[in-house]
């Protein structure tokens, strides 16, 4: 971690400007500040209405200063005891730039797919607008283009109602839209998926906050039609037990 920090620091250092008068060898009175954070927004066990147990993670890590940051995002799930490998929904390495007080623009590359040795991963380029919308809606909007040229848009929004000084009710909404059909990845164009959730979170400390919650997940549009044709269930509900953790 230290070596990585050092590397990033060097990469991020702009031409050092002499803002004051100082003699050679004197320290700068104020230095640039870089830090890092690892945040598991969701680290949870899900019990679906199909009576499956699913381990889910949704995390972000970053290193950088006020304007420039390297960001790593990862999200995925593993259905317990089904013998199937973990499903990596996204793993992205991005460069982020703070463009306005509440919004950063991020661009980078990602990969996703089944985490088994023989599966081929879907690699893609991604740009995101991540930030805080008026009325404190926390958003992450991503546009992905894979090697086949398939375009997908994913939007996540969270809101927090402050119940007490250490507990929150958090609605969450996530939708996926395919801008193109994809034969290789069996995606139908149009709005394809909607997932809504509600979590009650209690902070043991600012850094560690367990929660319980419920969610509803549904396929939409052409995607739902296709699933129906295959005889699959287009909706899923479940309860979750997890924690929001950062360090």
């Amino acid at each position: 971690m230290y070596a990585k920090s050092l590397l990033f620091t060097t990469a991020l250092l702009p031409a050092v400007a002499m803002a004051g008068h100082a003699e050679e060898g004197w320290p700068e009175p104020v230095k640039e500040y870089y830090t890092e954070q690892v945040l598991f927004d969701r680290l949870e066990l899900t019990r679906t209405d199909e009576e499956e147990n699913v381990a889910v993670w949704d995390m972000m890590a970053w290193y950088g200063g006020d304007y420039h940051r390297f960001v790593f995002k990862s999200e995925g799930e593993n259905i317990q005891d089904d013998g199937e490998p973990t499903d990596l929904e996204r793993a992205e390495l991005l460069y982020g730039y703070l463009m306005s007080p509440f919004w950063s623009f991020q661009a980078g590359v990602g990969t996703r797919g089944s985490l088994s040795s023989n599966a081929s991963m879907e690699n893609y380029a991604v740009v995101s607008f991540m930030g805080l919308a008026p009325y404190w809606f926390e958003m992450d909007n991503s546009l992905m283009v894979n090697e086949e040229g398939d375009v997908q848009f994913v939007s996540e929004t969270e809101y927090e109602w402050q119940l007490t000084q250490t507990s929150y009710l958090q609605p969450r909404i996530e939708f996926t839209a395919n801008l193109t059909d994809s034969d290789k990845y069996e995606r139908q164009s149009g709005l394809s998926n909607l997932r809504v959730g509600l979590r009650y979170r209690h902070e043991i400390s600012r850094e560690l906050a367990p929660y319980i919650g419920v969610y509803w997940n549904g396929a939409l549009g052409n995607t739902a039609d296709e699933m129906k044709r295959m005889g699959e269930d287009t909706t899923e509900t479940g309860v979750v037990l997890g924690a929001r953790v950062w360090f």
Partner: protein
Amino acid sequence: MSNEFNKGRRKFIKSAFTMASALAIAKVAPTWAAPQGRSFKDQILTNDEIDLTIAKSPLLVGNKVGTPITINGQMPGPLIRLKEGQRAKLNVTNRLSEDTSIHWHGIILPENMDGVPGVSFEGIKPGRTFKYRYDVEQNGTYWYHSHSGLQEQLGHLGPLVIEPKDGDIGADREHTIILSDWTFEDPDTVFRNLKVAEGYYNYQKRTIFETFEDVRQQGLEKTWKQREMWGQMRMSPRDIADVTGSTYTYLMNGRDSAMNWSALFKPGEKVRLRIINGSAMSYFDVRIPGLEMTVVAADGQPVKPVSIDEFRIGVAETYDVIVQPKHNKAYTIFAESFDRSGYVRGTLTPEIGLEAEVPELRAVPERGMAAMGMGAMAMSGNKEEKGMMNMSGTDGHMNHEMMHKKELPVENIKIEHSEGGHGAAAAMIAMNPTSRLHEPGIGLDNVDHRVLVYSDLIGAQEWPDKREPERQIELHLTGNMERYMWSFDGKNYTEVDGPVQFRHGERLRLVMVNDTMMDHPIHLHGMWMELENGQYPRPRKHTISLKPSEKVSLLISADAPGSWAFHCHLLYHMKAGMFRVVNVA
């Protein structure tokens, strides 16, 4: 109930200390802060040449052992008493494992003695001694503190009193009180918490139930209107202090409320209290229930006496007040953090061991429309918004005094924001900044006693430079809470390519505009700032506190050649880059 509990707890702690060894008690607090109640003249450093040793040592802070930075074994450091006209000889030895420094806050001295690493000198390396030498040409109440990293948060600070040439302090006795905020957390951790988790230390946020209650009491429409603007701006009206009583133990002369720092008086005596806010981040509201206070000096400089019941002291400011307790009973000196998340009390008493009732913390205040620069004038021409002004916002009321008082120079200065605001570094710009010198500040508007305001301050004497300003410099205070970015004109120190240039000998007007939702104590090293508050002689200050969306103007005689620090004195704002070098040449 909690009050009962606290009282019980206090008693317990107190008796626990009584049982502790005399040695342990002696190690608790500096000797000058010990409650002998005499003037401190016989307990303080008054030698012609003074040696100060900076070290880290375990010390009881409140009821727990911490590891503050001590000066001659004490935290806060010893009271240094100098005499106007003497040559100060202060030898500072660094026994830390990192560089250190001492800045003599408010003292006019040569640039190489000002003690700011990287601006006035290179700092004091571990094991080395730096010899500060300067002529003392002023008197009054000042203080000293480290200007290296976050050392100030670890208690690297102390009081500095300069006796007037004639020795007349205008009172029968005096006590020096330095207020500070202590945390058992590592200051670097505190800073990182602020950087990565907005609102980390704020445990006074608005809850959904309070909103429900507002809807029930005043209807949905009015509640929505109150909340709407805050929601659009993504800011909280309860965002008052960045670091709060949730981590801080507030100290008076190094002692917490339970230890009850006490000072003696004889009934009928005039007692001069020299009060210094040596906090890293905390503004205090100070009062002594049952006693009128007469302010006689601000930032060490004499002002015409103003009688008040309470005053707000910004970080790094000092006020001298005279009290004259007539009765043979104890009085509580109550210093309440301005976000009401905690307090520290001490006692003014005719005999040791007495204590008086300790007031309860007042309700958490909320910022009103004025904080957004939407006070009185901003509303003109917009009927709908004009209605919003009548909301119950606590610091947004327009008072009549404002309509009748004489016009200040700053009121005719048109404020220009840089194009497109100040970039991502500024989450807001004050839409219509106003002069707020006549306002006591958030949480004090509706109290039923007299509170000191800046417009009350009148210099006790004329200052030598009576020229009109030839030039004007405008600086905006900017910030973005989300990433804890603090800056001037949208740029932190590391982003600017040169110092702010003053021409040696010029008289200039510094106009500052607070484009943030927080109060900021802005400190200029090396030169006085005369506050244009409509009074003459103007009061002069080393540290001026700006309320949200306030504009102020100050006159400066650029008579001190060299490089000087200019910064927000909230320690973590300075660390974030709300800092400039002023070069006088």
